[in-house]
């Protein structure tokens, strides 16, 4: 299989206007990925499937990842005037990483027996602009997996033939796999032996100890 740089040039040539970025991978697994932009994702996916040298006809895994906003404190050198003299001073600056939801696809080729090629799509933010183009018209294996990403993360896939909840029941609101999911405590509750036992065990603990 060709390298990601060669692949990137070919993709941009085949689907004009597509913006492709290579995301490196820090672990020893050596599996870097391609970040695609939302508008051309479907065209790029079709190129990846239909091209004779690549022939990525099998989408093995489609998964969602939640990246909430993180505040990183860094020391940055800034030029400031101190007592009339211009000096470089180190200041603590806060930087916010962008918050988004991501869909990651792992592609393999059954015909040419190579892979994996990892493709990522990111939404604009985590609150209201959470739609991504669906890759189900290209690879049917994404059908149930995109439904699961919708169910557990809340990404709306445009062009999906049947987008509804798959693992949670249809009247459920909220998205359980997000990092800021708070479990509802108004579910049908029946005291179980474990709760009584937990209450009894807590009596042994000193006050304020974590459970």
């Amino acid at each position: 299989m060709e390298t990601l740089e060669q692949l990137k040039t070919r993709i941009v040539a085949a689907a004009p206007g597509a913006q492709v970025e290579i995301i490196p991978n820090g672990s020893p697994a050596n599996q870097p990925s391609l970040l695609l932009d939302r508008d051309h994702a479907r065209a790029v996916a079709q190129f990846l499937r239909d091209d004779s040298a690549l022939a990525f006809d099998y989408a093995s895994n489609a998964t969602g990842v939640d990246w909430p906003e993180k505040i990183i404190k860094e020391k940055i050198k800034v030029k400031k005037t101190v007592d009339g003299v211009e000096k470089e001073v180190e200041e603590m600056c806060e930087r916010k990483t962008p918050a988004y939801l991501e869909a990651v696809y792992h592609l393999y080729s059954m015909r040419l027996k190579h892979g994996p090629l990892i493709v990522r799509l990111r939404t604009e933010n985590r609150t209201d602009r959470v739609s991504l183009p669906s890759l189900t018209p290209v690879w049917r294996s994404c059908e149930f997996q995109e439904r699961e990403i919708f169910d557990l993360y809340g990404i709306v896939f445009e062009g999906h033939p049947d987008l509804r909840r798959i693992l949670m029941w249809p009247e459920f609101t909220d998205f359980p796999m997000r990092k800021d999911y708070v479990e509802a405590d108004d579910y049908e509750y029946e005291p179980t032996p474990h709760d009584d036992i937990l209450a009894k065990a807590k009596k042994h603990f000193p006050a304020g100890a974590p459970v």
Partner: protein
Amino acid sequence: MDGAGIIKGMIETARNFAGSYHDEARLTTVQYPEEKLAPVENARTIPFLVYDGAEALPGLRCTACMICEKECPPQCIYIVKDTVKKPDFVGKMQMQPKVFDIDISVCMSCGICVEVCPFDAIKMDQVFELSTGDRFGGLLLNKTQLAKPNDYFNKLHKTEAAEIDLRRVEEKQKAEAAAAAKAAAPAKPPMAPPPAP
């Protein structure tokens, strides 16, 4: 011939049926509870605490290091450290648990608590006839219910217990030798008074 496949299948069934009267391999039912299968050495169901000697609480190997509580995946172990220390088998003073509860209705028999324990204090038991009529509290075992003697451990897991006992005997001998060497060292002469300033 039509139906030949079915007849061949019936012959196999007949062979199994007739064979079950005289062939051990074809009759595999064990009439529990009158017959019981012999326990296997490595089998694991719920954990138990090992103690050395005759009395459970003073001989308990556990030093309340909290590692098993931290590593337990379903978090079914509850430990509270005691303020009073007690000596271990070498003679060194160690902490001990005041409360050591395991909720065996939550325990999933994974054995990770046994793998991570640095003191060989918690091991896997093989009892499975644990049903009780008491829904609330009958399946929460405390320190006394969990403590079982080292002889019981030797009966269950022969090879592992033999290795551990050998190692503990060696460690005890080394500790006694070190203590004897320290006691036999010649007393140091008194220090000369400091020179006058």
